[in-house]
């Protein structure tokens, strides 16, 4: 039996969730909280197998609340329930210590599955966000620095490495010289280099300059 604490400031929402869970054999709602302080009180007072947490409750900022709970109850799995479909929310919630992130829209279909997975020590992400997040994860892997550059940044990187000046690049790309310098700063920062000669060396070493650009 998975004992859970539901934290949501809307009674209607809590009722709805309880009804979904009532249909299941293995989940029991052992407590309810209606704002951030309430949640903290409840988890300090009782033991739960899982916290079902609404991210946007009055009082504390959602991410901060997750962090706080994580420090107080590091072993309590948290499934975040949210209205927001943007991956930023999921990323912040997961990074702050949540084990799962579920959009409210898909609650009726996914809630039980999510609770079971998270309670078993696993992780869960709403299918709507899976694709977005996958790219975020890929970005974390150890590809060469130039792969981190956007298309435009890569183009400007190659022009810089080929010895083109800011003004020449600006003219060819129809950009303000200032925009190009901003790009240059960004390229150097992303590549973790300090000067154009570094870019040239890198370009040569990785065979990125083999097609000489025509002027």
């Amino acid at each position: 039996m998975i004992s859970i604490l539901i934290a949501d400031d809307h009674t209607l929402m809590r009722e709805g969730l309880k009804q979904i869970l009532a249909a299941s054999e293995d989940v029991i709602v052992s407590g309810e909280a209606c704002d951030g302080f309430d949640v903290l009180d409840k988890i300090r007072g009782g033991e739960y197998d899982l916290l079902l947490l609404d991210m946007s409750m009055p009082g504390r900022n959602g991410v901060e609340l997750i962090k706080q709970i994580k420090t107080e109850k590091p072993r309590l799995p948290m499934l975040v329930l949210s209205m927001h479909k943007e991956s930023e929310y999921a990323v912040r919630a997961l990074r702050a210590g949540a084990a799962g992130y579920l959009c409210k829209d898909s609650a009726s279909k996914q809630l039980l599955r999510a609770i079971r997975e998270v309670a078993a020590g696993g992780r869960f992400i709403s299918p709507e966000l899976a694709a977005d997040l996958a790219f975020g994860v890929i970005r974390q892997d150890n590809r060469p620095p130039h792969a981190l550059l956007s298309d435009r940044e890569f183009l400007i990187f190659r022009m810089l490495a080929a010895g083109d000046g800011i003004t020449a690049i600006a003219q060819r790309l129809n950009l303000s010289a200032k925009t190009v310098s901003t790009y240059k700063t960004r390229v150097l920062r992303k590549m973790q280099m300090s000067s154009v000669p570094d870019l040239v060396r890198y370009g040569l070493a990785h065979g990125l300059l083999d097609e000489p650009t025509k002027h």
Partner: protein
Amino acid sequence: MSRFDSLEVWLKMVALVVLYLLLAKLVLFLFGGNDVVGFSWLASGVALPVVLLGGYRYLPAVFLGALMAAWLVGKSPGLALAIALGHAGTVYLGIWLLKRDARFDPSLSKLDDYLRILVLALGFGLITAVFMQVMGWLTPLLAGSQSFTQRVLGNALSIVLIMPLILVWRRWPRAWAAPRKAGEMALIIGISLLLGQIVFLGWFQDFLGHIARGYWMFPIVAWAAVRSGPRGTVVILPVIALQALIGARSAAGFASIDIAQTPLENFFFYMTSLSTVGMALATYASGHERVEAEILATKNQLQATLDAIPDRLFEVGLDGRYYSFHFHHSDLLPTRLNGALSRNLLEVLSQEAAEVCMSALQEASEKGWSMGKTFVVPQIDGERRYELSVSVKAGPAGPDRRFIVIARDVTERMRDEEKLRASEAALHELASFLQRVREDDRARFARELHDELGQNLSALRIDFDRLANELATAPPLINSRLAAIDGMIDATVEATRRICEDLRPAMLDDLGLEAALASHARRFSKQSGIPCDLSLDREDYGLDSTLSTAIFRIVQESLTNIARHARASHAMVTLEDRGDDLLLSIGDDGCGMSSKLPGERRTHGLLGIRERVKMFGGRIDIDSSPERGTHIEISIPRTRELPR
């Protein structure tokens, strides 16, 4: 050159040739047979100024005239040809030399110009004489009775007398149309004629003969010179010369023995000194007149300029003493300044105002000018503020230096400027207040929509899903109704979410600026199809909500502009933490803002951005052109006391 001009030149040439013939005839008639002077004697005085003024194109006419004149007076064709060639060549040489002298003024406004004519005449006479001499050696026909000196002086004289006449009278004087002036001129010419007759032709010889001498002519020439300038003088001189010549020819009067004893030398030097004196006086007098006219014109100009200046204008010494003043409207005079002349400004002005004036004088005496110092004078209708500008009068430095001081009443201007500043400040405050109110309202609406409607919809969805689940086996009619409701709920949820986001992105409050910017940039790219590179150099900039909102709104507005107007293929947004301030750059590679495209919306968008930047004490720099796209660079200080 138009056809008409060219016709005119031809006519003039023909006239010149005819004139040569007539003048040769005249000389023949006056001095016929006796060879005192050559036939081209008068004509050279005409030919030189014609070529000088009209150009070398008249040389052929000069040549032809001389040729026909020589033939007219009975020279053989070969000799006539040689004489005409020599004559035209000498004219060419003389004019060529004269034109090389850059200082020569053909209107003979200076004595120098007249002296140059004198030298030219002598040179011309000399060359002609040498030429005749050589010809005389070659052909006995031309040996004649003339001496070398006679030839030189004879040829020179006509030039000295006729050339100035033509040069000076080239333009008709307007002033002489005045009856008094014309009357005086007629009187001068009449007296001159009479005196000439007496002196040179022996009129009234019985009782004046022994005292009628050449010097009689000097006073009348001096009179003509002083009263009429070169114009009158150049008329009188040839007349006198003609009278003298006739006298010499008929062995009467003052020049009676000139031809016989001195081959015209006495006559020539007499005429030369008479005309030099006359022309010297004339040019000096007319020069003086011109300068006087210029001074008068300058004075009038200055007076009118002064009258047009609405300011008070003083001349004061370094010690503050008034020397003169000029007021446009004396009734506007500050009463305490009345009768200020020859007093000291220290006595007239308050101590504070006087100190300002003295420091302005001091500054002007050091720098040469002083501007912008202001002081206050209390008056019946309240205080008035004056602005000083001071210049130094030219002259030796020292305690006697004088200054021109303009005191401009700037009371209204200062008041208006003050009002303008205040109203501008109020406007900014209002704009900033409205901005804040609007932002707060939007945030509240978004929050309420989200909390009330959004949450209710989520709950509704859960309930509905359960219900739909339980009714899975219901008749198809009910199921299709359920599916419709399902779609309606989805659409409503989506609409609510969109309205909330448009009002104010929840992420800005929930997750902070960084996440909100990332999400917005992504949404922008998806909706507009323009890739947008966002680069943030911090995970968390630690900005307060107001500043975060401002930066977010600026980026939002800029990206909206890019999507709407820029026709860009790339956009980029960079936020850089520089310690004390943040540097926000937004760039694109589109068509720039200078195109005709931007309507009011765009200008307003930019205005909003500027207003926000100003609110935070930031600086905005926009670089935009069709060739370079648009680059907006904004720096905003991190810490700033916000107007509350």
